[in-house]
C-alpha cells in the first residue's frame, strides 16, 4: 500500500541498452511500443495497482513570479537542460520489490528492431500520509 512514481526521461537518465531515437524506428516498431505501454497500463489496472500514467511534451517553458502587479516572467525552453522528463506512471503496490519488478517490465518495452529498450526508469516513493500510531516520541 505504497505509491511509487515510475519516471521516464527524455534526457538525464543513463544510456539505454537499445538506445536508438524513436524517429529512427519503423512505424510498426513505434506501434508495437505504444501497444506495449497501453497493455502494461491495462494489466496494472486489472491487478488493482494502476493509479495514473501521463506523457509530457518535450518542450516547455520556465516561469517565475516577477513581483506584485507584474506578469510572470517566462524563459526557455533551454536546449541544454540536462534532465528532461518524458512521462510517468504512478502505481500503488504492496512492496518496494513489486515496484522494482514493474519498473523492470516497463523498461522492457520494445524499441528498434522490436528488441527491449532496456531504458533506465527512475523509481521514486511518494511521501505518505502520516500514520495514526506514531509514538515516535522523538520529535514525533
Amino acid at each position, binding site marked *: 500500500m505504497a505509491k511509487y512514481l515510475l519516471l521516464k526521461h527524455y534526457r538525464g537518465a543513463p544510456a539505454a541498452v537499445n538506445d536508438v531515437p524513436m524517429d529512427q524506428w519503423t512505424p510498426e516498431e513505434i506501434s508495437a511500443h505504444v501497444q506495449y505501454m497501453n497493455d502494461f497500463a491495462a494489466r496494472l489496472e486489472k491487478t488493482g*495497482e494502476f493509479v495514473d500514467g501521463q506523457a509530457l511534451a518535450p518542450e516547455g517553458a520556465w516561469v517565475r513570479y516577477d513581483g506584485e502587479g507584474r506578469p510572470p516572467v517566462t524563459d526557455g525552453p533551454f536546449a541544454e537542460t540536462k534532465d528532461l522528463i518524458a512521462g510517468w506512471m504512478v502505481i500503488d503496490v504492496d512492496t518496494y520489490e513489486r515496484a522494482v519488478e514493474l519498473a523492470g517490465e516497463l523498461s522492457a518495452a520494445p524499441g528498434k528492431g522490436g528488441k527491449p529498450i532496456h531504458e533506465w526508469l527512475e523509481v521514486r516513493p511518494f*511521501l505518505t500520509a*502520516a500514520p*495514526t500510531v506514531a509514538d515516535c516520541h*522523538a520529535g514525533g
Partner: protein
Amino acid sequence: MDEALLRSLTPGVLGILVRRGADFAAAEDAVQDALVEAVRVWPADPPRDPKGWLVTVAWRRFLDATRADAARRRREDLVDEEPEPGPVSSVDDTLRLYFLCAHPSLTPSSAVALTLRAVGGLTTRQIARAYLVPEATMAQRISRAKRTVSGVRLDRPGDVATVLRVLYLVFNEGYSGDVDLAAEAIRLTRQLAAVIDHPEVAGLLALMLLHHARRATRTAPDGSLVPLAEQDRGRWDTGAIAEGVGILQTALARDRLGEFQAQAAIAALHADAPTAGETDWVQIVEWYDELARLTDNPVVRLNRAVAVGEADGPRAGLAALAELDDSLPRHTAVAAYLHERDGDLATAARLYAEAARKAPSLTERDHLTRQAARLNTRPSR
C-alpha cells in the same frame, strides 16, 4: 439515516446469503446493491426489520443476477430448494467473514479493501477515495481479492492475528477522504470484539481508542505535527481514554499478554499522565521490554531507546540506540532528539536535517525540517 448502523448489518446479511448457497463473490455484489437501495429507500420508508429487508432485497438481487448468468441451470436447482437459515448463528457468520476477508492468501492491500467492502459495507468509490486510487483500479483489486478467496471454505476458524493486522492497517494507514478510516477501523474492531472473546482483539480495540482520543491534538490547525509532549492534554477525549483503559484492564486480567495489549498499555500510561513531565517512563520501558519479548519488530527497540532516554537520561538512550541498525526508519530522528536532549545542538541540527530527507511522510518531513531550523537559527550566545 444512520449509515454506520446500516453498514453494521452488512456482515450478517452477507453471511446469510452465503449460507443459503450463494457463492461469496456474487453474494457480496448483491449485498452492495441492497445497501445502495436501502440508502435510497429507507429515509422515506424505513423498514420495521432492517436486516430482514436487506436479506430479502439482496437475495432477490442475487437471484436476478444468477438467472442472467450462464450457469443458471445449476443455480436454479439451488434456488428451488431455497434453504432456510440453518442453526448457525449470525455471530459465526460475521466472524467467518472477517477471517475470509483477511485470508493469508490475500496481499495486505487486497485484504484491507475486501474487509472495508464486504465487512464494512463501504462502496468501492469510498474505498478508492480513501486510498487515492482510481475507482476502476479499486474495483479490480476487490474483484481479484474475491476470486482469490472464492475457493476458501468458510467452515474453518482462521487465525485472529491475520484479522487484527488488517484492522490495524485500516486504522494506521490511509488518507482521509469522505470516510474516516480510523473511526471505521474502531467500528469494525468493536464489532469483532462483540463476536469473539479474545484478549488481543480487546487489546487492539483499546489501543485504537487510546490513540484516537488524542487525535484532535496531534496536528495544529495548519496541519503540522504536534509532538506528544506538546499536545494539549485538556483536549484529549477522556471518554475514549476511560473506555480504552477499561477494556485493556479486563484483557490484561486474563493473563494472556499479546503485542496489542502491550502497545495499548504504553498508550494508556501516556494517557494517564496529567503532564508530559509526569509520564511514568520507567514503566513504559518495562512495557517496551515486554513488547520486545513478544515481537522481534526493530521499531519496538527504537521506541524503547527513546523511553530509556527519558527514564535514564539521553546518554542511556543513545547507548540503547547504538545497538540498533541505523538504517531503521526514524532512527536518525531518534538520534537527533537524544542528542538535543544531551545538549549537543550542532549534531542534533545536522541529524534533524538528515532525518527530514529520509522521512516517509510529508508531515514528519516538515516537522523535522522545522526542528533543524529551530536549532540552526537559535540566537548565538
